[in-house]
């Protein structure tokens, strides 16, 4: 019903983009000589490129569409996912954690766990991470095919096969470098495609002040204070006062601390980008450089969602309305439909291409993280050690094909069993939630032991599952939302509040158990072995950069100050 007509010029833009993507893979092919080139870009990429790739790999289409949807649903409070839920963790990674990732001999995050703790901790992380990336890539593929069918009436299988082939070709040829370069290309494309949309939307609404005025209708119609959609902190005092249904403490602990540090500091998907940098200093600057564009991305992705809901509430004048799905608005359509509403042929092609680019780079990012963890942490460690480097390079390429084929399977599975995907994502959330406690203790407490880390992770995962099984969000009865253990101990005001507290619970359990078990088990690794892996045993990095803007600490202070200012402006 809301099919868009793309013209010749729109398809021309799409084709040009695809040619460049494939061309980059082709041009990089001759530089892929060793497994290190393929999996780690030979540690030769300048900081500005890894910095953009660092945020771009997270700016997949699911993120773009999801943030647009949240912008419509919750308003500007969605910015907490950036200003609270990303920037502080990115600073922490750059300043405190990167020296250990980059400085140790580790080639991946699971490998760091092996060097610091033991084989079983690495195995647990490597297997769960490999599974997760494959499914994430499949879900990305599925979502893209679904969207292309809805918007452009493309055949579902055509979209899946086309995106799989393109991603396969460029990651097969150019490995991690190809993925990183295409992420940078995609970053500029997203900016180019979305800036005109935001410009037109704001102009139409009469600027930010005009949009605020329009959003008052939205807030009041939903039963909140008139400015609830346009103030990020003011209504966080009580979960009933803001549309997210969370209060500031649960939000800062769950999102700002546990979830955000767990994602940005321990997820190999993003950390891999920083590890590809050409020096220790560049690796540390990677997340800090990424933080500058990151803090402004809400303008591109959250604002259009807010515009969409404002227009919907005055559909009499604007002629625009979000479609309904199951008795509520289908918020996920906010961004795609806004593109269609404001952009004429030409720029519309650019916007849709940007969206497709971000779907594909989301897939490519997962595939390159998968082939690295599979080859180094599973294949080389458990299946076939002591082979030649060329053999592992070959295995990396095979893992790329294998990973994409399995993702295609996952995409079709998702189209058959929607609940299965929700279920898997839930399991992965349980596994991920406690991870940051393990890394924190591993990097900053030399007494932490392998048994402690492993049991801590297990307990944390179980604690997450238990908490989720014993609580429900208000107004929900579905098993997938929680309460599946029979008795309900607590009812949260919203699903988001429940998620935040599940994460906090998992983190605390892991933290406490790791400490307790470490104290009663003996330390297996000597101080000499832990050098470069633990804070107190590692010589401080020397200030190698002389000019001020290349020093990580200076950058961190600037980023932090700018983020604070943004929070105050939109308080």
């Amino acid at each position: 019903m809301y099919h868009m007509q793309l013209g010749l010029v729109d398809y021309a833009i799409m084709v040009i983009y695809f040619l460049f993507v494939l061309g980059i893979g082709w041009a990089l092919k001759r530089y892929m000589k060793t497994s290190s080139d393929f999996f780690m870009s030979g540690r030769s990429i300048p900081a500005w490129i890894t910095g953009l790739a660092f945020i771009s790999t997270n700016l997949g289409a699911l993120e773009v569409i999801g943030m647009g949807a949240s912008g419509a649903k919750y308003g500007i409070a969605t910015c907490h996912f950036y200003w609270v839920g990303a920037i502080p963790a990115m600073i922490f990674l750059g300043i405190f954690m990167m020296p250990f990732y980059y400085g140790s001999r580790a080639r991946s995050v699971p490998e760091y766990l092996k060097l610091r703790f033991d084989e079983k901790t690495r195995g647990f992380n490597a297997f769960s991470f490999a599974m997760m990336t494959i499914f994430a890539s499949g879900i990305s593929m599925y979502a893209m095919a679904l969207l292309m069918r809805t918007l452009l009436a493309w055949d579902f299988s055509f979209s899946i096969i086309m995106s799989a082939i393109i991603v396969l070709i460029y990651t097969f040829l150019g490995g991690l470098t190809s993925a990183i370069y295409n992420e940078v290309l995609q970053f500029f494309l997203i900016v180019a495609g979305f800036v005109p949309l935001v410009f037109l939307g704001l102009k139409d609404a009469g600027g930010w002040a005009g949009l605020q005025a329009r959003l008052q209708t939205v807030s009041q119609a939903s039963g909140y204070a008139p400015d609830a959609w346009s103030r990020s902190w003011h209504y966080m005092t009580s979960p009933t006062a803001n549309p997210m249904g969370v209060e500031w403490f649960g939000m800062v602990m769950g999102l700002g601390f546990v979830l955000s540090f767990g994602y940005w500091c321990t997820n190999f998907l993003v950390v891999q980008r920083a590890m590809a940098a050409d020096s220790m200093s560049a690796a540390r600057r990677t997340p800090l450089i990424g933080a500058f564009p990151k803090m402004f991305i809400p303008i591109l992705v959250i604002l259009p969602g807010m515009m969409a809901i404002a227009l919907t509430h005055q559909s009499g004048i604007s002629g625009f309305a979000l479609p309904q799905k199951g008795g509520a608005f289908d918020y996920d359509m906010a961004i795609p439909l806004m593109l269609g509403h404001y952009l004429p042929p030409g720029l519309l092609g650019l916007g849709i291409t940007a969206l497709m680019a971000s779907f594909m780079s989301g897939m490519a990012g997962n595939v390159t993280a998968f082939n690295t963890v599979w080859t180094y942490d599973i294949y080389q460690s458990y299946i076939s050690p002591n082979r030649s480097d060329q053999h592992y390079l070959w295995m990396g390429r095979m893992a790329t094909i294998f990973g994409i084929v399995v993702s295609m399977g996952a995409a079709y599975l998702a189209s058959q069993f929607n609940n299965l995907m929700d279920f898997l994502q839930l399991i992965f959330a349980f596994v991920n939630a406690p991870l940051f406690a393990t890394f924190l203790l591993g990097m900053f407490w030399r007494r932490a032991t392998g048994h402690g880390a492993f049991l801590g992770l297990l307990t944390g995962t179980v604690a997450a599952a238990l908490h989720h099984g014993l609580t429900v969000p208000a107004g929900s009865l579905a098993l997938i939302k929680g309460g599946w253990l029979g008795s309900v101990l607590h009812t949260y005001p919203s699903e988001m509040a429940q998620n935040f507290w599940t994460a906090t619970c998992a983190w605390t359990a892991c933290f406490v158990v790791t400490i307790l078990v470490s104290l009663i088990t003996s330390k297996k690794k000597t101080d000499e072995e832990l050098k470069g892996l633990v804070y107190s045993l590692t010589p401080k990095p020397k200030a190698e950069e002389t000019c001020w803007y290349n020093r990580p600490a200076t950058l961190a202070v600037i980023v932090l100050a700018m983020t604070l200012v943004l929070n105050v402006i939109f308080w």
Partner: protein
Amino acid sequence: MGLDIRIPIGLMFTILGVLLTVYGVFSDKAIYQRSLGINVNLGWGVVMLAFGLVMLYLGRRGAKSA
């Protein structure tokens, strides 16, 4: 890595910029009703072209100094 990413970014934005600019000049003005009567293809095409040329220039300069 041997390939400077600024070159392909610059090339792509130059090509897309030219395409949008030319399309903006020759397209039917009626299609801009959606975009509040503004010929955004022309305006944004020129911006993208300029960005592409700057990237190409930086990439070429980087290649020479290396």
